[in-house]
């Protein structure tokens, strides 16, 4: 009782400034850069999803974001993704995208499941044309969910893409109809996630929610992750975001490699999804889609 550590700075509530047992570190670990931090966080999320849910799948849209996602999953699980990669196929993607899927699905040893979408007539006719087309994908997703009974779907959306996505949680509960209740989202903090969906409902898990478009490209370059060539400029145009052929437009660009894309992103003020028709038809079209279960 005689050897007492002198008091650390106690505050008014009896809290003290952290003091801890310091162990001598003879050699310090290499410091983490921004991409290292993003990667570590995403891996943590992947492992939480795999540990806490029963049956999960990764939504592979073939785009730059979901390719980074697969790469991160392979890092999290030491080479092979231990759950299915689901491609909900509208049948209207670019030929380059299908080629990419067939090649890398094999090379990356993915448990690939390609699921079709219903015909356009089955979709809410009050939506504007492009949104209605995109809503097919939501219906296809619901059909795949019913078929396999997944309780968690991993999706590569990012907060910086679009304002409604900025409101997402990392673990985002969906209703029994696959719908998103933006007004009643549970709190989520300190990397503790709400991972108990009600019976019959599912969760969306967003491992790259905290990444930006520039982060995705910088990481793709650093890790040498393959991409679809449509992202690189040809004849003064390139795709910043890839969707269905009939509702996705290229943007004016001369960026023919990733370095040039990064420079372009430094300077542009044009939003990433400017080429995605469905975002711009009416003020609330995108939010209506997301509430209904779109990504």
């Amino acid at each position, binding site marked *: *009782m*005689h*050897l*007492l*550590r*002198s008091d650390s700075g106690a*505050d*008014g*509530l009896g*809290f*003290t*400034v*952290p*003091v*801890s*047992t*310091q*162990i001598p*570190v003879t050699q*310090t*670990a*290499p*410091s*983490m*850069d*921004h991409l*290292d931090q993003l*990667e*570590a966080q995403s*891996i*943590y999320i992947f*492992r*939480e999803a*795999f*540990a806490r849910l029963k049956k999960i799948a990764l939504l592979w849209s073939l785009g730059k974001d979901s390719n980074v996602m697969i790469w991160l999953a*392979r*890092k*999290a699980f*030491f080479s092979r993704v231990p759950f299915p990669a689901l491609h909900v196929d509208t049948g209207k993607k670019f030929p380059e995208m299908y080629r990419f899927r067939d090649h890398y699905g094999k090379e990356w040893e993915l448990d690939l499941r390609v699921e079709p979408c219903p015909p356009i007539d089955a979709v809410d006719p009050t939506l504007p044309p492009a949104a209605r087309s995109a809503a097919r994908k939501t219906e296809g997703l619901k059909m795949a969910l019913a078929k396999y009974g997944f309780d968690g779907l991993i999706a590569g959306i990012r907060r910086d893409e679009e*304002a*409604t996505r*900025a*409101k997402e*949680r990392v673990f985002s509960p969906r209703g029994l109809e696959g719908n998103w209740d*933006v*007004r009643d*989202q549970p*709190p989520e*903090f*300190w990397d503790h996630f*709400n991972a*108990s969906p*009600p019976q019959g409902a599912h969760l969306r898990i967003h491992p790259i929610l905290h990444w930006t478009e*520039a982060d995705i*490209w910088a990481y793709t370059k650093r890790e040498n992750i393959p991409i679809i060539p449509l992202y690189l400029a040809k004849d003064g145009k390139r795709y910043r975001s890839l969707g269905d052929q009939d509702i996705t437009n290229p943007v004016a660009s001369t960026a023919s490699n990733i370095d040039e894309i*990064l420079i372009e992103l*430094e300077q542009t*003020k044009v*939003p990433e999804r400017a080429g995605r028709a469905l975002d711009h038809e009416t003020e*609330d079209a995108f939010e209506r889609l997301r509430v209904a279960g779109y990504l």
Partner: protein
Amino acid sequence: MNMIVTPAPPATPNGTTRPQVRIVIVGHVDHGKSTLVGRLLHETGSLPDGKLEMLKAVSARRGMPFEWSFLLDALQTERDQGITIDTTQIRFRTNSRDIVLIDAPGHAEFLRNMITGASQADGAVLIIDALEGVRDQTRRHGYLLHLLGVKQVAIVVNKMDRVDFSAERFEEISDEISAHLNGLGVKPTAVIPISARDGDGVADRTDRIGWYKGPTVVEALDALEPARPLEALALRLPVQAIYKFDDRRIVAGRIESGSLIAGDEIVIMPAGKIAKIKSVESWPVTPVAGRQGAGRSVGITLDRELFIERGDIISHVSAAPRETRRLRARIFWLHDKPLAKGDQLLVRCGPKESRATVVAIEKAVDPGELSSVENKAIGRNHVGEIDISLSNPIATDPYTENPRTGRLVIEVSGRIAGGGLVLSVDAGQRAVPVDIVPVESALRPDERSARYRHNGAVVWLTGLPASGKSTLAKALERRLFSNGGSPVLLDGDTLRAGLNSDLGFSAADRSENIRRLAEVATHLARNGHIAIVAAVSPAREDRAIARRIADAAFREIHVATPAEVCEDRDPKGHYKKARAGALASFTGIGNDYEQPEAAELVIDTSTRTVAEAADEIEQMLKTTGVLFDEVVDLAANI
């Protein structure tokens, strides 16, 4: 919102040359958060081309005057309601920082969203309306920032145009909020007068606030420091999973603090099993050489097959976390149904989960209210301290020792309902499991008093090392025993050799040491003995807890021998070692002994003999009703 700025100085997109800082803007509803954000985006040149014009056009179409806050209200629903309902993230740049701005709603109903946003922040801006002043949500948000561990807080007094840019009004608010935050241990980094609508104080010190000499909002943001990984602390690797995808058995998790390298000897808590790290696995290249630091998600293999499960904590043998089934936490509560004593919960500490029971609730208050009325249960959006008993042992650290592992969340029906900081483990004087029924003694107190000729008591001797506590305690023990009494000596060091051998010398451990001493002493006193405790017990608050436990039986004696005399005596050689720097934490040569303010007796052993001092104690015990006088009627003391 995708908002990317023309680069001011050359910058790399992955932020290697520019630190990224995440900030949150909080405060009472309608005090101008969204307006400030809109204005900040404009002042830092962060708006996409045409966005401002587009929104001005939308305003005109709706017949409303343009508001800066429209920039944020990208959701139709928000515009309809006129309030920001959720956390959005927007990026912009100051001179030397990439700022990720997390907007958080001020409406009390959306506190869970404010917490979700603020928990990710490195720094915060707390906004206050100059006209309305500090309101309940201002105080509540200030409190939560503190509880969430956000240390860098800048205060912005907005709408200065509405008070004619009055320096007096600014000072008034500045003093009030600074006092509130200081009480929470938070020191504001700046207090800034602004008009977010007109731009004063946001990026420019305009003439209208010519009396203000401090930083602008943009300058204050530029001075924020990004979070640093906790590499200097002891290793904590909470296990997320064990993978056996191939012939490797990989233990996966994220290093929350400290660092590790292949070859390290580690201990797996709470089981306490020891192993060596064989390799650090990775992909596509494996294994990886070199040290792995805090923040990394890693996978390791061990040199032997041990049973490990999700939630275990891997640490170095020399600095392991403590295993416990009982802890005290300060929490915020977000569930509709108030948290009450006896409630069954699920507690998560990192990947570890355990069923738990609330065994005590203290200091349950609404942090928004000025007068802190204590409640029995913790209501929605309120805070409090709870003792919880866990059905599975967990390994954890007090928050003061490790801010990453020393925090927890509480789930109700599969949904996060609250969270907070681990204040201490195994603590809480009233942490009695609800299913324990103490067995009463077969003897009545008066039977014992009649035999010993005294009532039970706790005689607590406090004072500097070498002040003479143990000498006096032994003299008193001999004297009472000679008179037919039943004294029991409880020496702090002796108890540390057994009952308290699991405790170290952190503030929390010291408190726990004192609590146990007090509990044991009180048990003896209730059974008619006089427990004589000799312990430095330097913290006034700890002694107050001891007094609360022993209640009316407590007699405090301050052995107030002058410090120079104590150091001169130095029977154990501790002062000498401490002066030589060999004892890092020693009460005596610093100012860390808090003198008693109302001891029953004060004795300076440098001016009297041991026998004289024992006389004084005996006299005090007589006058305070512990010892019976020869002539006293026993019945009067029962």
